[in-house]
């Protein structure tokens, strides 16, 4: 399948940010008619390489050759004109416009400056049809689910250059984490479209955290680590274990360690007790007891009330009924401040919108909660602050280990660690983690899970929410099962509890 000459060749790519060398001399090549995976942990430089390729970032060094000609890509528009189109993880289209417009905007068919709506809709419908999709192009984009919006984004990038003879058609299609919020059927639909485009000779660069998907669809892969090239392999020549070792740069022993890990069997005295706590429209009243050093995992489908339960325990939403007792004292829980005061910490699932302040530095983000707990009138002495920050950066292995780096420039996994550090520094009695491992790579995932285990060993109670049942099962002493906004069961973890048992409980919704 691979032809002798690559359609795209990037050589010696260098990209630097203040305090971070994101890419140091990376080589990358892409052949026409192949699906190529770009692999690496978070922070390895995948996103940066893609943004350099698509003109969002400018190069600090290296050359890009497209079709044998050296090109300079200074903006997303130039990239598109050169034949490089991108579909990002977050759909970058305009939801307020129709599907046809989203496909054509910027190159609508015009006659005498007047947009030919009919022709545009017809061409859009033909394009959608040719790619085997069933989408009404006159409907507003916002009326479709995210998965379809993503397909529209791909149709748009493929359609570039089809009308008016502008550009020269898409040669390279970059798909950056397109599958992260799709379900299985939607992924299959996407893959079908990808194969179709590949057979038409388009070179596709595919980034995904799901290794199974990589092995299902990709022909070749390039592995990055810490901003350098580790290697280029045919997918069939490298198994998953080998790939992970290349990505994290060490053998899998460390990850295995966690599987062997025995949970601490003796948990301490009762820390928190919720009685009949509930909120209309959020979650039905529930009783919950959390002991010191206990890890409680919450299992349930998306929207089953996992987050709502956690928010009630943190005072982020006000309960309609019930009471919470922490350490024997009743706590009013009318605002997060009450919870923080009682030693509860909450890491939100939306780390970008509800947690971190991207424009502040790592140091400032870590110190935020501690400073809030002390009150603004008592600033933390600079020396003590720097020492604390340095300690947690080291303990959690936040990379880059630079307290002055802006959080927004860190990778997802490292952002999550900063958020964790912020709460750990306040030494909470109960740590609520809502989807702490979502969207981060396998190495960082294992580190965070290990951290949870060691925190629990030190006597901290942890309420752990995760979409992956294996994760919940591996970490928790007790598993709370939620279904339809109701806590339906509490299972004590043991050898007889398996993921299928949990699934059964979710499906049947039976009380113990």
């Amino acid at each position: 399948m691979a032809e002798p000459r690559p359609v795209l060749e990037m050589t010696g790519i260098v990209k630097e940010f203040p305090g971070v060398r994101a890419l140091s001399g990376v080589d990358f090549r892409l052949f026409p008619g192949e699906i190529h995976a770009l692999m690496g942990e978070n922070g390895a430089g995948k996103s940066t390489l893609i943004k350099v390729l698509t003109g969002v970032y400018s190069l600090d060094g290296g050359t890009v050759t497209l079709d044998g000609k050296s090109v300079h890509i200074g903006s997303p528009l130039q990239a598109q004109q050169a034949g490089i189109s991108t579909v990002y993880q977050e759909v970058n289209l305009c939801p307020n416009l129709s599907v046809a417009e989203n496909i054509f905007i910027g190159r609508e068919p015009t006659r005498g400056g007047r947009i030919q709506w009919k022709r545009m809709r017809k061409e859009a419908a033909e394009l959608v049809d040719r790619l085997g999709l069933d989408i009404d192009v006159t409907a507003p984009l916002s009326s479709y689910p995210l998965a379809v919006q993503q397909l529209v984004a791909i149709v748009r990038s493929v359609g570039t250059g089809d009308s008016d003879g502008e550009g020269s058609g898409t040669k390279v299609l970059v798909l950056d984490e397109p599958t992260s919020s799709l379900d299985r059927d939607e992924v299959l639909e996407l893959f079908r479209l990808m194969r179709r485009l590949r057979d038409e000779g388009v070179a596709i660069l595919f980034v995904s955290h799901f290794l199974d998907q990589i092995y299902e669809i990709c022909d070749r892969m390039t592995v990055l680590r810490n901003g350098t090239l580790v290697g280029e392999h045919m997918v069939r020549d490298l198994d998953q274990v080998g790939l992970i070792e290349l990505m994290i740069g060490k053998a899998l022993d460390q990850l295995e360690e966690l599987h062997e890990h025995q949970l601490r069997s003796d948990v301490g005295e009762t820390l928190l007790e919720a009685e009949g706590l509930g909120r209309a429209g959020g979650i039905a009243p529930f009783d919950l007891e959390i002991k010191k050093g206990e890890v409680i995992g919450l299992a349930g489908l998306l929207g089953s009330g996992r987050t709502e339960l956690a928010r009630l325990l943190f005072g982020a939403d006000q309960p309609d009924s019930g009471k919470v007792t922490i350490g024997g004292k009743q706590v009013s829980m009318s605002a997060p401040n009450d919870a923080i005061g009682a030693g509860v910490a909450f890491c939100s699932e939306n780390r970008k919108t509800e947690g971190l302040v991207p424009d502040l530095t790592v140091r400032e983000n870590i110190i935020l909660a501690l400073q809030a707990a002390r009150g603004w009138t008592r600033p933390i002495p600079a020396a003590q602050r720097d020492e604390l920050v340095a300690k947690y950066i080291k303990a959690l292995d936040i990379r880059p280990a630079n307290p002055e780096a802006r959080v927004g420039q860190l990778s997802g996994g490292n952002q999550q660690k900063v958020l964790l550090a912020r709460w750990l520094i306040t030494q909470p009695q109960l740590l609520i983690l809502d989807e702490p491992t979502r969207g981060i790579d396998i190495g960082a995932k294992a580190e965070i899970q290990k951290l949870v285990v060691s925190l629990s060993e030190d006597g901290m109670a942890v309420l752990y929410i995760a979409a992956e049942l294996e994760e919940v099962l591996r970490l928790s002493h007790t598993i709370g099962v939620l279904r339809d906004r109701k806590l339906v069961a509490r299972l004590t973890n043991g050898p007889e509890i398996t993921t299928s048992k949990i699934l059964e409980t979710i499906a049947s919704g039976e009380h113990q």
Partner: protein
Amino acid sequence: MSATTKTPTVPEGRTASQASAVTRLLGDRRLPVLVTAALFLAMYITGLSRYQNYGFAEPQVFLNLFIDNGYLLVAAVGATFVILSGGIDLSVGSLIGFTTMFTAWLVERQGLPLLLVIPLALAVGAFGGFLMGYVIHNFEIQPFIVTLAGLFLFRGLCLVISKESISISDSTVSSMAQTRVSLGLGELSIGAIVALVVLAAAFYILHYTRFGRRVYAVGGNEQSALLMGLPLGGTKIAVYTMSGFCSALAGLLFMLYIQSGDPLHAVGMELDAIAAVVIGGTLLTGGSGYVLGTLFGVLVLGLIKSIIQFEGTLSSWWTKIATGVLLCAFILIQRAMTARKQT
């Protein structure tokens, strides 16, 4: 915009969520315009029944809405472009005031012919808008602040020209102001006709040119527009230039209407323009709305004034109170619509 009656279909393997009639209605972007149009009609019918003995039914009462509010319509059309793009322009009223002063001064004090002054005033307004757009885009400053600076700047420039008002006795101006074009049922002033032409042009630009669609795209999602390769800067600067041009044109119409220049003309008119746009159903967050809605917004505001005049005993401040209540109601409708979209 595209009209669709078909239920959107989704790829096989999933079932389309069947939107209820209410959901679909709330999701329809044309809903606010229809609500405003219906409101206008209801108010008009109320007026007909209450004041039919006082001549409210005369077609001329309706046409007077255009004559008396032509300048506001032009200013509001400019503001529609800005708000659709996700921005705001607070300099509208000052620029209108400045244009009245500038033209009155040139015509009366300097003796320049009106036909020369008009293009000059329009160019100055457009240039002012261009500068604000340039600053907003190139220095990434909030449009609120930049146009607030514009508000003070142009108001100050009024006073530099003269501290007192300049009445216009130029014969061309007065003959233009008094010209009426008969429509059979009634008549329209030149100002009203210009306003309608501007409205039609704006409609064409927004819906049938690439630039117009870019305005919607930028307002819908600026980051996406950039990543789709649309010229973000050019679009934003053009939008403010357009608003500056419309403000200057509104100033000329206002000068025709009042026949004087005054440093305190049109104080706060930017807020009237914004109110008309919002009542007309354009989302303040940008990306959704129609210039036709703005027309109805202006007509509603104008009709409130007319009704209060017909009522006779009410203070004119009731106009402001009614505007405030309406604005509140329409913001709530917008909120209901956007809240639905998020779920």
